[in-house]
């Protein structure tokens, strides 16, 4: 395969991604600080964490709006289109590549090109994160910011308890995603080529 650079990440995607990373990291750190608050060993003072978390949360929502509208209005949205027939076998093929083929130097089953920005596993996790987990976090986050709108009872328990449980569970999964996401970004032409791509916009094929 010839080595080439594909312009895959337009400026708005790169800017959105950069803000998304900074905002998510800030939210995770302040969130952990509140969840494990301890007056003796505060990671960040509780009231400071609350303020930062609220402001950054609102900024994340605005940033999400850019992503949402950007995907509706530009060709970037097509990368997030899941094609369900044969999805499982494609996922398994990609999983097999990550757990075996990659170590043997086999070619990637779904190489990145201008029509396919994500491999099947990437696509599924990105769609899950951006169209399920992040909206859950945003809706529950707004509700927690205006807790008086949360029903005092919902189904079998306290509405506040349930809202917070969903908020934290979804946030926990996004945190796990970030670990895996950053590691998998090192699987490129070189360990840093994917990171460079998110700065200059070019994906280096290998």
């Amino acid at each position, binding site marked *: 395969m010839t080595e080439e650079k594909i312009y895959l990440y337009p400026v708005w995607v790169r800017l959105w991604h950069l803000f998304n990373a900074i905002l998510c990291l800030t939210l995770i750190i302040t969130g952990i600080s509140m*969840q494990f*608050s301890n007056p003796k060993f*505060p990671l960040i003072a*509780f009231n400071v964490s609350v303020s930062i978390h609220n402001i950054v949360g609102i900024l994340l929502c605005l940033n999400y709006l850019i992503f949402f509208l950007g995907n509706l209005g530009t060709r970037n*949205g097509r990368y997030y289109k899941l094609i369900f027939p044969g999805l499982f076998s494609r996922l398994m093929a990609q999983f097999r590549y990550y757990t075996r083929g*990659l170590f043997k130097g086999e070619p990637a089953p779904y190489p990145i090109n201008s029509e396919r920005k994500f491999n099947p596993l990437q696509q599924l996790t990105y769609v899950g994160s951006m169209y399920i987990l992040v909206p859950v976090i945003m809706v529950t986050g707004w509700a927690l910011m205006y807790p008086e709108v949360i*029903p005092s009872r919902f189904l079998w328990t306290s509405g506040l308890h349930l809202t917070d449980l969903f908020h934290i569970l979804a946030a926990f999964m996004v945190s796990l995603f970030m670990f895996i996401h950053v590691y998998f970004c090192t699987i490129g032409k070189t360990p840093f080529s994917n990171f460079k791509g998110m700065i200059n916009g070019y994906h280096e094929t290998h």
Partner: protein
Amino acid sequence: MVKKLNYRPAWVIFILILFAGIVFILSYSANSKADRTEAAIALKENKPEQKKDYSEHKHATENENCLKCHGQSKYSYENSESKKKNTKKMYTELIINREVFYESNHREFKCIDCHSEDYQTFPHQGNLRMEAKPNCLDCHGGDEKYAKFHFENIEKEFQESAHSEKHSEDFTCWMCHNPHAYKINARSNENIKKTIAYDNAICLNCHGNLSNYQLLTDKANPNLLTKHDWLPNQKLHFLSVRCVECHTKKINDSTLVAHKILPKKEAVRNCDQCHSTNSVLLASLYKYKIKEVRSTKGFFKGVIVNDSYVIGANRNYYLNVLSLIIVGFVILGIIIHAVIRTLN
């Protein structure tokens, strides 16, 4: 057609959010109605009395001799000189609401168990106004039957409170616990929000009511909303936390409600004191409720199902351990993968 398929995830999520919003609004409107009803029940002492039959109560007939005048806003009598019927207004503070009294802790008593028998004649003698009113310990002190309520500890805590230190003996148990209305609450009320509303109404009876507040001072009562401006989500805090949780200090763990009301400067103001594992909230009402739910509904429901949720305080030990294990496995998986990649 192809274009439509491209944007399917966005539209599905949009419709899901819309649907969740509709469910939420419907649920909210039903709940807010229930909340208003709860608040009304908690404050019904101030509502006009409904006509009801109280004859099933032990001393209802005898008490009616007093309540036929003291149970309503006006009373009538025949002037022995002019032989004319006179109707007068009853002073508000002398009106006993039958419904509230017959639901109160003291519902089994006759009026003259606590008040002088001389009140049975009308017009009442002038010197009866000087009658000493019994305080809680006059009846409840040193009685085995009431040992679980720890009245002696309550008395000790009260003696050290800001109320007692500022106003000495002028501040009696009656100021907060009207014996004609007081109903044991935290131990019997299953709904923690109702308990909170009931207990906070006791404080607001003076701190939110100028004429009652000025019984002991000439100063105007401070505006509670402005004084608590610093508190984020003020409304939620007022509905979910009792004033006494932050404004008291518990000397003895045996009393359910701390009675040592602190001077305002010593009140809890640090978020972490509630929003942490050693939350001061978990030392009183919330601790009692959590223990109650665990003993009556079992451990699982005690952990998962409860009304008393405080961010940062109600951490679930098992969920925390599970989340750390999952994070550990993810990091371990990444390390193993990276090592194999490097070796190949």
